[in-house]
């Protein structure tokens, strides 16, 4: 079967491109059921982007949920082996949209790399994140941050205040950040420096070296420098930036985290990172890193309104020889035209040519 790309929607093209990309790098597809026991989400509520979950009772009375998230299910089912497991998925998830306060079906594709991770694994996932964005558009930016570094800087601060500071960091809101720190007698200088520092993989090493981090930040900085050195050789390197205003939940994410943006799409469409803390919360001893690409925004992106609903509108009568009508349609379509056969002109239809069957 030959597929013509003109009949494929943007998100379908992207799905195929991503599937090819992940398969080429040795990731196996992980196909899931749409349902999961609700219990799994109750235990890890904060990991979910939205609190609300669609629930229903199974035939044997168990409380089930329509998946709001794929990562938790993959971790739950992951075996603890010596090797690193590489998996990708393409699933629909069900979440409450903040703007409409109603449930929305979101198409998501992504990958997870689970096991005893080494630096290569981390760099590979970052590379695949960049390549995933590139498959959608050349005008992308991948922002990399490090939750370990942010955690180390905020070490020792009261939980509620830490949460508020994290919020300000994600908004690049240094004015409120400084005001809060002053009120709470916290030295804000390093936090503010961290929010303001950004740059390419070549620049970031020097820029970070200029900030007087404490001893507890050493490991994180070392990891950032190692990853930065390695990804410098990537062809997509000029579109990868380090930006420490990218934050994920500190209770789940521990290392490198990242977010991807496409020019023309108002929100981030790729999000991921290393979530060893979630793994240990779920009783797994290994590490894990992964990301998801949200495909629902692509519908609006590169939207071309078709000029015509059909190339040829073929009008026929009931009294015509229908086998001949069918044959004509077949001939016209095989010549590459889109044909709509009707007995009368549908209201509001735009067609290129009108043919009457004779």
């Amino acid at each position, binding site marked *: 079967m030959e597929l013509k790309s003109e009949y494929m929607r943007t998100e379908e093209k992207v799905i195929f491109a991503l599937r090819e990309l992940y398969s080429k790098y040795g990731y196996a597809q992980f196909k899931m059921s749409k349902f999961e026991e609700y219990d799994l989400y109750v235990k890890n509520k904060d990991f979910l982007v939205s609190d609300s979950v669609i629930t229903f009772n199974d035939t044997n009375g168990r409380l089930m949920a329509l998946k709001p998230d794929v990562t938790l299910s993959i971790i739950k089912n992951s075996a603890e082996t010596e090797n690193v497991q590489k998996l990708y998925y393409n699933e629909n998830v069900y979440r409450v949209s903040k703007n409409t306060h109603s449930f929305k079906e979101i198409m998501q594709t992504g990958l997870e790399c689970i096991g005893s991770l080494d630096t290569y694994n981390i760099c590979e996932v970052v590379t695949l994140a960049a390549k995933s964005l590139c498959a959608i558009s050349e005008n992308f930016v991948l922002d990399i941050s490090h939750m370990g570094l942010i955690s180390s800087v905020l070490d020792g601060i009261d939980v509620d205040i830490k949460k508020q500071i994290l919020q300000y960091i994600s908004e690049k809101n240094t*004015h409120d950040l400084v005001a809060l720190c002053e009120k709470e007698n916290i030295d804000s200088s390093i936090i503010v420096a961290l929010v303001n520092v950004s740059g390419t993989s070549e620049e970031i090493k020097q820029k970070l070296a200029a900030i007087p981090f404490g001893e507890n930040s050493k490991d994180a900085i070392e990891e950032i420098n190692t990853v930065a050195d390695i990804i410098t050789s990537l062809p997509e390197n000029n579109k990868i930036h380090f930006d420490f205003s990218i934050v994920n939940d500190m209770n789940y994410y521990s290392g490198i985290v990242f977010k991807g943006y496409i020019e023309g799409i108002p929100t981030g469409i790729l999000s991921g990172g290393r979530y060893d803390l979630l793994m240990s919360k779920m009783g797994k001893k290994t590490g894990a890193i992964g990301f998801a690409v949200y495909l629902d925004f692509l519908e609006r992106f590169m939207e071309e309104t078709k000029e015509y609903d059909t190339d040829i509108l073929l009008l026929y009568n009931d009294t015509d020889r229908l086998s001949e009508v069918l044959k004509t349609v077949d001939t016209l379509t095989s010549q590459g035209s889109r044909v709509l056969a009707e007995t009368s002109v549908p209201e509001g239809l735009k067609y290129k040519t009108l043919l009457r069957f004779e």
Partner: protein
Amino acid sequence: MDNYINIALPKGRLGEKVYDMFERAGYPCPSIKENNRKLIFENPEKQVRYFWVKPSDVAIYVERGAADIGVAGKDILLEYEPDIYELLDLDLGKCRMAVAAKESFRDNTDKTLRVATKFVNITKKYYAGKSRDIDVVKLNGSIEIAPILGLSDVIVDIVETGTTLKENNLKVFETIVPISARLIANKSSYKFKADKITNIRAKLSEQVIKND
């Protein structure tokens, strides 16, 4: 896609003040001063496009990318919680979010507190932080009237000078948070128009310091 920087300004006196700051920052658009009913103004030379929107809608325009940057009150940002960058406190339109009530009011913690407000989210969060059970009465205007008519015990609203409160025999009991106008940016636009946006931020920031 054009390279214009799209700026959403809040309609009204504050918006005009803010526009003047943008003009001094090197992004003028003279047609905006013409007295007409147009809502969108462009300056092709500076590649800048301004539009006037309802103040409470600025955050939505920016979050959804119809505007790259905009100026919104902190009250709107706290209420709506948009996913945006908040780049600068412009130190304009200063006021505070406060709890006010009749002068004779005394808080009874043995009862559910009835609170009238336009800012439901801010109110809920504030009282949740105090573990206080409240009954929110959402109103869209003339909030001051609620305690007088017995519709609510207290109100949560923006207080600028306190004149309206005083004239209605109300007084401020607690300040929740100080409010002022903030420069906000769409997160995705910030990545792709970084030079322009950081330049605007810097130029506006210089003017804020001068105001002090």
